[in-house]
Each structure stands twice: as structure tokens, then as C-alpha cells.
């Protein structure tokens, strides 16, 4: 068996085992209602996490996504409240803005040779600040189009619903997997994560790829913001604080190496679902407090980092003896 699949398999096994443990205690967790809600409630996180997976695969990091999601939400709310523009046009406009925003961060990272961490930190402050400037209030969105979008779902047997946003997340993941595994851009991302200098020598267009990666992350953060505004039917500049951390955690739990170069977009979906499952379990239990979510996710994060370390060590030893 190929060793590069080991973290992914471990993640899937952990997910199935923990789902089974939860189901043994609360059989209702197996109902399609819970499954449907698991997808709907984590849709915005999942979509943003796809972008984060590409960024981390390339050896970078994007701290700005939580703020970009909040900016998108408040931008849509303000636009729909004060102008008569159609939501779809507003969606297109905000996606252009967030994509450009990400691409500019990518350009700064590449051309100024600065660490992604501090550049996207500035982006985080800027996006949150722009959201504050647009409005500091929580603005409800009452457009009939939003109500129509919400009423659009596929009914599963057993009463569960695959909502529009839940389905959109699955679609984004499918496209993300294709993009990572079956396109030249995806190969370039993996190469960049393996080593910027090496890939430049191999002929990978480092500058263009970096800009595209952060542009993609900005685009998906904007899409995630649209999903979040559909999910809550409101825009609030203080929303989704710290979502970047949840996304990074999902990527790592999904088996992607934080140093870049190895991992799978599909694993991130499982990482997101594990986080959602922990929250669902805590809701079902009722007596456990919400802070256990954070502690458990932290513990999982630690376990996966250790596992990746061990796998790296093992593969190095195998190479030595072979």
C-alpha cells in the first residue's frame, strides 16, 4: 500500500469509528435528518476549507478567510438593503472582489518574498476593517430570492434534506478534487509545496501559481461568505471570527501535511465532518459543555500532527534501508 494514503485512511477510519460510537449511544444520529444537517451546518466551513487545502498544499497559509467571509456577508446585506440590485449580480460582484483580494495577497507574497503568514494577517485585518466600515450592525436580508433559495432542497428518504448549500459544498469538494488531481494547476500546487526552488528549476511558473492559489482561496472564501449569508439570512461584521483556525484544523485532521506537498482535498471533507460530528454529539448529549468541542479538536489536531511525524520518520528509514 502506498504510504501517502495512510493519513487519509486513518482519518476516514477515525470518522467511521467515531460515527459508529455515536450511533451506538444515540441511534438517531444515523437518521438522514442528522446527515443532511451535518452537510448544511458545515457548508460554509467546508467550502472555505477547500481553498485552505490548496494554500496549505502549496506550503502557505491563509489567515484572512474568516474576515473575508464576514466581509462578504455584510457586503451582500448592505448591497441588497440599499440598492435594488439582484442578489445574483451582487454575488458575482462580491466574488470578483474577494478573488482579486486573494490574488493581490498572493502577488505580495510572491513579489515581496514575505511570509504568507504575515501578509494574510494584514489581509485579515483589512477585510475585517472593511466589514466594520460597511456596517457594525447585524443587518437582516429579506430579499424574496433568499427565501426561494432556502426553499430549494432535495428530500432524502427519512425526512432528511440536502439543502442547496449542503449540495454546493459537496460539489465544490468534487471540483476541488478534480482540480488537485487532474489538472496542471493541481500538479503545480503539489510541486510548489514540495519546494519552491526545486519547482522553479523544474519550470513551474511559481509566481502565477502562487497568485492563482491565493486567488482561488479568496474566491472560495467569498463563495463561503455567500453560503453563510444564505445560511443565516443576515450579514454581521463580527461573524465567523476564527473560522480560519477551524479550516486549518479540518485540513490537518484531513491528513494534509502542514509543510505542504502532500495531502488530499477529499480528506479535508472528512476533517470538516469530524468537527461537525463532535458538535452534533455534544448537542445530542446535552450535558457536555460546548467548550469540549475546542479541546477535542485540539487533541485530534495534536494526534494527527504526531501521526504525520511518525509516518515521515518511517518513510525516511525505509528509504535508508532499501
Amino acid at each position: 500500500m502506498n504510504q501517502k494514503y495512510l493519513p487519509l485512511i486513518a482519518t476516514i477510519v477515525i470518522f467511521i469509528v467515531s460515527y459508529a460510537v455515536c450511533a451506538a449511544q444515540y441511534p438517531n444520529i444515523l437518521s438522514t435528518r442528522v446527515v443532511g444537517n451535518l452537510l448544511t451546518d458545515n457548508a460554509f466551513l467546508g467550502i472555505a476549507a477547500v481553498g485552505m487545502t490548496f494554500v496549505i498544499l502549496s506550503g502557505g497559509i491563509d489567515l484572512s478567510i474568516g474576515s473575508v467571509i464576514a466581509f462578504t456577508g455584510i457586503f451582500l446585506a448592505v448591497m441588497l438593503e440599499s440598492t435594488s440590485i439582484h442578489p445574483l449580480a451582487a454575488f458575482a460582484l462580491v466574488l470578483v472582489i474577494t478573488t482579486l483580494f486573494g490574488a493581490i495577497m498572493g502577488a505580495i507574497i510572491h513579489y515581496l518574498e514575505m511570509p504568507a503568514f504575515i501578509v494574510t494577517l494584514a489581509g485579515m485585518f483589512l477585510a475585517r476593517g472593511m466589514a466594520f466600515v460597511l456596517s457594525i450592525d447585524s443587518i437582516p436580508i429579506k430579499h424574496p430570492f433568499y427565501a426561494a433559495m432556502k426553499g430549494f432542497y432535495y428530500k432524502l428518504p427519512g425526512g432528511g434534506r440536502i439543502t442547496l448549500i449542503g449540495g454546493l459544498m459537496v460539489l465544490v469538494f468534487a471540483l476541488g478534487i478534480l482540480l488537485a488531481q487532474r489538472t496542471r494547476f493541481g500538479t503545480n500546487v503539489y510541486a510548489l509545496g514540495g519546494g519552491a526552488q526545486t519547482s522553479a528549476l523544474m519550470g513551474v511558473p511559481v509566481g502565477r501559481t502562487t497568485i492563482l492559489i491565493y486567488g482561488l482561496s479568496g474566491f472560495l472564501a467569498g463563495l463561503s461568505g455567500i453560503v453563510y449569508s444564505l445560511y443565516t439570512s443576515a450579514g454581521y461584521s463580527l461573524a465567523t471570527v476564527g473560522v480560519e483556525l477551524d479550516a486549518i484544523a479540518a485540513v490537518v485532521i484531513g491528513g494534509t501535511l502542514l509543510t505542504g506537498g502532500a495531502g488530499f482535498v477529499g480528506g479535508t471533507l472528512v476533517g470538516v465532518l469530524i468537527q461537525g460530528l463532535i458538535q452534533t454529539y455534544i448537542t445530542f448529549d446535552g450535558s457536555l459543555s460546548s467548550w469540549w468541542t475546542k479541546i477535542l479538536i485540539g487533541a485530534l489536531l495534536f494526534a494527527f500532527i504526531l501521526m504525520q511525524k511518525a509516518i515521515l520518520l518511517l518513510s525516511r528509514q525505509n528509504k535508508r534501508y532499501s
Partner: protein
Amino acid sequence: MIESALRFGHRLLPQLVALTIILLLIWLVFPGFFALEIQNGRLYGSVIDILNRGAPVALLAVGMTVVIATKGIDLSVGAVMAICGAVAAASSVRGDPLTVTLLLAIGTGLVCGVWNGFLVSVLNIQPIIATLVLMVAGRGIAQLVTEGAILTFNDPGLIFIGSGAFAGLPMPVVIWLVFGIAVTLLVRRTALGMLIEAVGINRRASTLSGIQTPLLLMAAYMLSGLCAAIAGLIVTADIKGADANNAGLWLELDAILAVVVGGTSLLGGRFSIIASLAGAMIIQAVNTGILLSGFPPEFNLIIKAAIIVIILVIQSPRVQAGVTFLSRKSVR
């Protein structure tokens, strides 16, 4: 002696110029800015306010500078502040004497530092990921300690740390000044500072040349934990209660920003604690300035982002190479 003082001044010049310009700008829009008065034997005024409110970031910046100099980063300091504040409040509510409360809080900070240091130096995990674990789990742990509530206490000794005064200055100001100077002397009057820089520039080479790298890294993260513990005590004592959700929230980013504004490179190596402290004061002066000048506080984050971008451009290896290239040409 004079030469070294001059060199020191040269290193600090950009930060001091920036700080002076910001203070003068605030003074222009708010003429009463430099006014000081003494009431009940302590100083009051906007300048003192900046020094006082900047205390947590200044303390965090001391530890963060040393960690960054080793080519690391500590994302967990905000969460550690929350944990230590929660531990102190819980201990005070239980009725422990003040010394026990303080020792418990500081001990907790050191333990958090040992955990981070262990992950980085023994398990060889990238610092940004290693400290992410505690950043994610830390607030949960703090809430576990406070049991989800905001723990309030009224031990006058503990409250004194947050709002008392010593020699006319607010206690937080005294603490960060003394602590900053003590750590600076410790690293600059011994070989420690040089060893830290060596580890930051090339960890392998320094290990091969006989430096106890794991021990030094552990010590750096423990110092960061200690700073976070003291900062957590100050924040908790200031509001007379432990708020696990909001104590130290996003302060790790402010602390990193202070270090970057202070001119220490995120890529490790040369560092200056005094410059980082000046950086912390610049950030606080901007915050206070925006409030005083009547700008909506919403602009605060945008201005911070602009500052980071300007510093990034100045620090960028490519821009610096270009500047040296141009200045060389003009000499010829």
C-alpha cells in the same frame, strides 16, 4: 561605549521616529494629549493611558521577540493568557492566599511554555503548527477552569496588579517596564542573546557547534508562557474577573505585529526587545489616537493593515536589494 550607544540609537531610529510622528499627529487633533496631572499620588493623562493599556501586548512582545528570534512563533499566547487568568481567578475565589494564586498562574504559564517547547524542540514540529494546538484547545481549557462562567473575585492584592499604582505609575506599566529591562539585560549582558540568534539563523549549525539547542528553544517558549501568564494576570486583575472567551483574544496577532513593527525579522536571527516594546507602544498609540481623534474605531483595523503592508515593503528582501543597488550607483 558612545559608539555602541550610537549603534543602538541607529537600530531604534525608525521606531522612535514613527512613534514621535504618531504622538505629534494625535497632539495636533487633540491638543490636551500631553497633559499630565497627579491625583491621589498617581499620574493621569493620555500618555500614561497608552503605557497602561499597552501593557499586555508589551509583555507578550518580550516573549514573542525571543521566540521569533529562534525562527519560531508562538500563536498560543492569547489562549495561555485566558488559561492563566482563569486559574488565578479560580484560585482567588477558592480563598487561596495571594502568593499561591500568583504562583499557580505563573506556574500554569510555564507549563504551557514547556508543552510548546517540547513539541518544537523534542518532537521537531514546525512552531506555527505546534503552538496552534494550544491556541485551539486553550480557550476550551480556560472555560473548563471557569466552568463556562465569568469568575469574579475581590481580592484587593490581586486587583492591585491591574489597577494599583507604584511610585506614581500604574502597576501594569511598572511590571512591563521592569520585566522588559530585566529580560533585555539577561540576554544582552550574557551570551544568551547571541546563542538565541545563532539558533534562529541556523539551528543545525548551532547544534553542531555545541549549543544546547533543545534547552534553549524550551527556555524561549517557557519565557513566552511566563509573559503570557503575567499579561493574563494583568488583564484578569484589571476587570476583576476571568473571561475565558475574551481575555487575550487576538492579542497573539498584536504581539507578533509589535515584534514586526520593532524590526525583528520573522525569519529569525537578529532581534531587539526594546524595539519590540517600542513597536507595542506604536500599536497602542495608534489605537488610542484613533479613539481620541474621534475617528470611528472601525478604521482601527484598516490602519493596522496599512502599517503592516508598509513594513512588509520596507523589510522585503527584494526591495532592500533594490535600495542597496540604487545607493551604490549614486556613490559611483
